């Protein structure tokens, strides 16, 4: 059985469907990217999967649980487009926020994660002292603090330059492999999706549906084919 199973998911604003009959299966440990044009409802989709927006029609099952239940059991971690770090806390304290809110006192977990991506030396720095790329990486690490099984990433590299992105791709892969996470990433970059994913889902527009699924484990993915599919 798939780890994440979405069946006939529909979402509408007023009478207008933004997502219609959306179906998706993600296996445990997979890195799946969702590609679509701007404004097709990719972020909305992630918020619904994360359980912070209600399901209007259809169903979502995360490891046998509804998103709200999975969220309550800390099985889901979400990273939004912006890093959303708290500027009044330093690097370490930003990572400790999820633990603090859950009443857990465990600095070692944060330091271990920082070490994993070679960021331990900057643990005492304030957010204003670190680069945009590091902010994005920290934001992903913060999602991992409560050790969720499913990681939802909403365009995590969209505001970064090419060189920083390249560095982050590698680190994301290190995290995913080391922590054996299932990752669902929303992006509009084809290269990014090809570099990182086991499976690429291309979305159609108005209403949003799955247009085509590319399986990197089985086939060699051709960038032009995805581009053609997006047109």
């Amino acid at each position: 059985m798939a780890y994440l199973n979405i069946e006939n998911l529909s979402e509408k604003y007023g009478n207008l469907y933004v997502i219609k009959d959306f179906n998706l299966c993600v296996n445990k440990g997979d890195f799946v990217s969702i590609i679509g044009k701007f404004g097709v409802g990719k972020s909305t989709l992630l918020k619904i999967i994360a359980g912070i927006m209600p399901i209007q029609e259809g169903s979502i099952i995360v490891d046998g649980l509804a998103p709200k239940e999975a969220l309550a059991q800390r099985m889901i971690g979400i990273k939004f487009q912006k890093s959303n770090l708290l500027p009044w806390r330093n690097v370490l304290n930003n990572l400790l926020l999820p633990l603090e809110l859950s009443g857990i006192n465990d600095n070692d977990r944060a330091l271990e994660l920082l070490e994993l991506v070679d960021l331990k030396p900057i643990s005492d720095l304030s957010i204003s002292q670190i680069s945009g790329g590091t902010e994005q990486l920290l934001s992903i690490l913060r999602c991992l603090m409560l050790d969720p099984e499913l990681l939802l990433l909403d365009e995590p590299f969209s505001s970064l330059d090419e060189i920083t992105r390249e560095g982050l791709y590698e680190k994301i892969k290190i995290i995913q492999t080391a922590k054996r996470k299932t990752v669902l990433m929303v992006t509009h970059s084809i290269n990014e999706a090809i570099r990182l994913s086991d499976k690429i889902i291309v979305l159609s527009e108005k209403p949003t549906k799955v247009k085509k699924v590319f399986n990197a484990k089985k086939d060699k993915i051709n960038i032009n084919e995805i581009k053609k599919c997006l047109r």
Partner: protein
Amino acid sequence: MFKVKKSLIYLTIISLLWQALVYFFNIPTYILPSPIDIFVSFSNNHMLILRNLGITILEILTGFLLANLASLMLVCIAFYNKRIENIIFPVSIIIKTIPIIAIAPIIILWFGTGFVSKVVIVILMCFFPSLINMVGATRMIDRNLFYIFEIYSASKKQIITKLIIPATLPYLFSSLKISSSLAVIGAIVAEFMAVNKGLGFLIMSSYYSLNMPMVFASTLLICLIGLLFYYLIDTIEKCLVNWQ
């Protein structure tokens, strides 16, 4: 330190120019007293001025603190109750448009000429700008930050203490700075109206007896108090909001 030195140099230059202006154009004291006249008036009446200054400062601080505490509490309540927020905004804007000069006599009629009426006027001056500013500040917090706190099952208390308060702290200090000068204006306006005591009263009574050095000494002193109050808040802000 360099800034203080620079300000003192400017102040000395202005005083010298002022003194020269009065001396060379032979301006009578009841029109424009010289800095020396003002200083002499202050030193001769310093006990009277300082006694009245103490009263004014007490009115300013009491009104300022009460207004800002009340507005903060209301902001927290309004944050969790959109109906209250929807009522607060139009009411605040209506009350804010009423000139304090127009409403002050009514307040004095209701609360008398003593300490309370002056504090009420200071509260009215400070409360609504602070409230509008703070409600605006809570609306500016990124919605995703609330989602993040929701994901980690944060309690309302945790959301207020770990998100809303720190996120709105820069706006709170901006609003406190605005309030600080409004509190001084409110206290002086109240003392103009309620003939009793305080620096505003001293300015008015000295004006009626054409004791202009005293008017200037009291006015300059209240300016100095407003300035010190502002910089005190600015210093606290620099200590607390050190991430900006």
